[in-house]
């Protein structure tokens, strides 16, 4: 099994190739969308590269589930409800929810998708 450092370096390489960013920009806490400029089309490219690099299969919506919060029960007044937070924890267990739980506005949702999140996801697939 690859070490955490090896996983990070390979994930970093995938992101550099997919997003056209410099290595230095790809830090563990960097967010895919806001910090690294990722868009929906980039998510597909990232998924393909991760699959090839780590020889894993990433089912649709498993790594980057979209519109989880389309359910009206999970969103209220521009924020995620307690039920919504629980749903998110189930759907993306490898995401660090601590900051988002303190300020669960929808606008902050994309910040859950970080380099670190991808590394944890890949590590979980290898187990």
């Amino acid at each position, binding site marked *: 099994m690859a070490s955490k450092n090896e996983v990070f370096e390979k994930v970093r390489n995938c992101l550099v*190739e997919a997003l056209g960013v410099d290595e230095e920009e790809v830090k563990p806490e960097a967010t895919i969308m806001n910090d690294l400029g990722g868009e929906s*089309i980039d998510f597909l490219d990232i998924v393909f590269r991760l699959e090839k690099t780590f020889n894993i299969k990433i089912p*649709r919506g498993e790594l980057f*589930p979209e*519109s989880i919060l389309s359910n009206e029960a999970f969103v209220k007044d521009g924020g995620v409800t307690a039920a919504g937070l629980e749903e998110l924890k189930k759907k993306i267990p490898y995401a660090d929810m601590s900051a988002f739980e303190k300020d669960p506005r929808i606008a902050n949702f994309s910040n859950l998708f970080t380099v670190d999140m991808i590394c944890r996801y890949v590590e979980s697939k290898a187990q």
Partner: protein
Amino acid sequence: MLRAKPSEVGAVGIDLVEIRKIGRLLSHGKARLSRFFSSCELEPLQVGNRRSSSHISYNSMKRLACAFAGKEAVFKALGRGWGQGMRWNDVCLHQGSDGSWSVKLIGHAAERLKEMGGSHVAVSMTVSKGHAIAQAIIFT
């Protein structure tokens, strides 16, 4: 004189895609892409045997960029994404010989349209300065 019953606009979606990014996607090969694009979207492409974007025609990239943007626009109009029960292939974009685009919904996307009371979806695309732009409108 017959008058068509006016349709009402139920919802709208829009998306913009950089065409060069599609080139990177195409380099992954048709097998991978077929998980996200239907055969009617991939067949017209002129993808070379080598997995290199330099072997892919700009027209192919432009066409797939439009298909991608169209799918995203439709998903936005439906108010759902491909993580919410819908698959990418539930939305299929087709370009006719006159250049116009049409969309066909199947599976959960078709169910969602019905749920919304929608009768049909119209899409329109344009390409400008390396970007493909798509708009989808759901009519009730």
